[in-house]
C-alpha cells in the first residue's frame, strides 16, 4: 500500500471511528436511553434530557476527546524532541508534579476554583508547569543543554514528587478517595466550561506545532545539522518543550493523570502514516482524542460502578509498550 493511500485510509477510519464514538457516548450511560429518546429530544428538547445528553454526556465526550488530543500531541512532540520513541508527556515530571499539586490541594482542603478548574486542578496545573520549569532550569545550569540531562532530571524530580505525594496520602488517609481521582484520572465530572478553557489552548498548540513541524523534522538529524540547515534550534526546542508541558498540565488539571495515551498513540500513528512530523502531529491529536473517547466509554460502561480511566488506558497501553520494547531488541 502506498503511503498516500495509507494516509487516506487512516483519516477515513479515524473520522468514522470518532463519529461513532461520539454517537455511542451520547446513547450510553447509567440512565437507560434509546435512539428514540435522542430523536425525540432533538425534535422536542426538554430540560431533563437536555441535561443528560448535552450537559453531561456530550460535554464529557468532548472533554475526553480534547484531553486525548492534548496528551497524544504532547507525546508526539516529546518523542520528536528527545529523539526517543519511549518519551511521553510524563517523563519530564509533569505527571508527578501535577499529582503532587492535586493531592496537596485535596489534603489542605483548597477548594477555590477559577476558569472551570477546581482547586486541585488549578494547583495541579501550576505545579505540573512548575516542575517542568525547574527541570529545565536545572538542566541548563549543568553546562550547556543536553537532552539526556533533561530526561534524567525529569525522572529524578518526578520520583521526588511521587514520594511526597505518597507521604501526603499516608498522612491524610481520609482524603484518599478524592486523591484517587487525580492519580488515575476520570471524566466523571466533565463540564462544558472545562472544555471551553482548555480547548483554545490545545488548538493553539496544535496549529503552532504543525507550523514548526519542519524544524522538528530537522532536529531528527541532530542539533548541529539542524542549526546548519538554518533552523533556530534553541528557540524551537524551547517552544516545543513549553507546548508539551502546557498540554500535559492542562490535561491533568481537568481530568487527573491519564497515562500511556501520550506514549502509545503517536506510535500507532507513526506506524500507519510515517514519521513526517507535520501529519504526525495532526493525526496523533485526532487519533489520541478518538482513543481516549473509547477508553472513557469502556471506563463508564464496563462495570456498574465507574472505573478510573487511567486503569483502562494503562490496560491497553502497557501491553503495547512491552510489545514495542521487545520488537526493538
Amino acid at each position, binding site marked *: 500500500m502506498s503511503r498516500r493511500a495509507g494516509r487516506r485510509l487512516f483519516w477515513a477510519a479515524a473520522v468514522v471511528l470518532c463519529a461513532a464514538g461520539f454517537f455511542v457516548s451520547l446513547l450510553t*450511560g447509567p*440512565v437507560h436511553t434509546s435512539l428514540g429518546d435522542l430523536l425525540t429530544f432533538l425534535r422536542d428538547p426538554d430540560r431533563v434530557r437536555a441535561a*443528560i445528553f448535552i450537559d*453531561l454526556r456530550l460535554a464529557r465526550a468532548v472533554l475526553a476527546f480534547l484531553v486525548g488530543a492534548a496528551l497524544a500531541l504532547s507525546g508526539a512532540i516529546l518523542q520528536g524532541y528527545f529523539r526517543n520513541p519511549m518519551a511521553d508527556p510524563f517523563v519530564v515530571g509533569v505527571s508527578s508534579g501535577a499529582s503532587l499539586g492535586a493531592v496537596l490541594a485535596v489534603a489542605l482542603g483548597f477548594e477555590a476554583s477559577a476558569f472551570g478548574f477546581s482547586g486541585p486542578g488549578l494547583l495541579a496545573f501550576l505545579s505540573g508547569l512548575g516542575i517542568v520549569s525547574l527541570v529545565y532550569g536545572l538542566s541548563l545550569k549543568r553546562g550547556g543543554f543536553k537532552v539526556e540531562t533533561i530526561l534524567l532530571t525529569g525522572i529524578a524530580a518526578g520520583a521526588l514528587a511521587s514520594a511526597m505525594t505518597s507521604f501526603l496520602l499516608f498522612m491524610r488517609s481520609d482524603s484518599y*478517595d478524592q486523591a484517587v481521582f487525580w492519580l488515575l484520572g476520570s471524566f466523571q465530572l466533565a*463540564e462544558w466550561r472545562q472544555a471551553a478553557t482548555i480547548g483554545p489552548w490545545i488548538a493553539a498548540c496544535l496549529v503552532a506545532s504543525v507550523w514548526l513541524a519542519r524544524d522538528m523534522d530537522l532536529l531528527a538529524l541532530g542539533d548541529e545539522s539542524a542549526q546548519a540547515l538554518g533552523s533556530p534550534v534553541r528557540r524551537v526546542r524551547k517552544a516545543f518543550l513549553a507546548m508539551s508541558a502546557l498540554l500535559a498540565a492542562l490535561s491533568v488539571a481537568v481530568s487527573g493523570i491519564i497515562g500511556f495515551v501520550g506514549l502509545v498513540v503517536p506510535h500507532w500513528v507513526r506506524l500507519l502514516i510515517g514519521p513526517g512530523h507535520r501529519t504526525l502531529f495532526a493525526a496523533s491529536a485526532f487519533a489520541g482524542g478518538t482513543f481516549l473517547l473509547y477508553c472513557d466509554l469502556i471506563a463508564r460502561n464496563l462495570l456498574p460502578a465507574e472505573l478510573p480511566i487511567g486503569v483502562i488506558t494503562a490496560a491497553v497501553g502497557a501491553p503495547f509498550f512491552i510489545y514495542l520494547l521487545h520488537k526493538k531488541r
Partner: protein
Amino acid sequence: MAPNLTEILFALGLGGRVVGVTRFCDWPPETTGIARIGGLVDPSVEVVRSLDPELVIAFRGNPLRVVERIRRLGLPVFVLDIGRGLDALFPLIERIGRVTRTEARAAELAAGLRDRVGAIDEGLRGVEARPGVFVLLYGQGLWTCGGESYVNDLIVRAGGTNVAAALPKKWVLYKRERIVKDDPDVVFIMARSEADFARGREALARMPGVDGVKAVREGRIFELDENAASRFGPRLVDVLDRMAGLLHPERFGGRS
C-alpha cells in the same frame, strides 16, 4: 444522598416523596423499590439529574466536587453535616424539616427522641459505676470509635466510658496491647448480622492476651446493630436505649 438522611425523611413521613437513594439506604424496608443513585462517594450525577428531584439533600461525606456538579446542573442542593454528639441529631432533624416544609412533624419527632434521651439521663442520675467499654467495628482489624465519634457520645450518655476516648479521631485502628491494658468491662461489637457478631466474639476470645480481659472472661460481649449505630439518624436513640440497658441493668430493670 446518605442512609441517615433517608431514614430521617421516612421518619418525617416523606417516604413517598423520596425519588432516589444511595445503594446503602436499606432502612426502612420501604426503601427497596426506590431508584438507586450510586454510593456515598460515587453518586451518579446523571441518574440524579434524570430523576428530576425538587430538592437534593447531600451530606458532608459526599464529595464536594460531585455536589457542586449537581448544583451547577440547576438542581437545588442542600448540604448537611452529621454531628459529633447525640445533641446534634435534633437540630439536624429540624433543619431537614425546614427544607422539606414539615417543620411541625420534625419538631414532634425531635421532641419525642429528646424525651427518650431525657428518660435515659434521668434513669442514670447519680450513677457511680461507669463501666469501661470497648466498641469493635466488626471487619478487618480492631477498628474502634475515638473521642470524636458520636458513638463515643452514645457510650457516655449510656453511662459508660469509652476506653479509646482519648484518641482524637472518629474511627481508629486500635492496638491489641492497649485493649489488654484498658481491660474493658464490656465489649460492644457493631456487626451487620448475628453471624458476624458470633465471628467477632470468637475472634476476640481467641486473641492471645485479649482472652484475659474482663469483658471476655465474664462474657459481657454484646451485639450492636451496625446498621442503626453507624447512621446519624433516629435509630441512634434505640442504640442508646440498648447500650444503657446493657451497661446498667440495675437501673433499667434488665431491659435491653
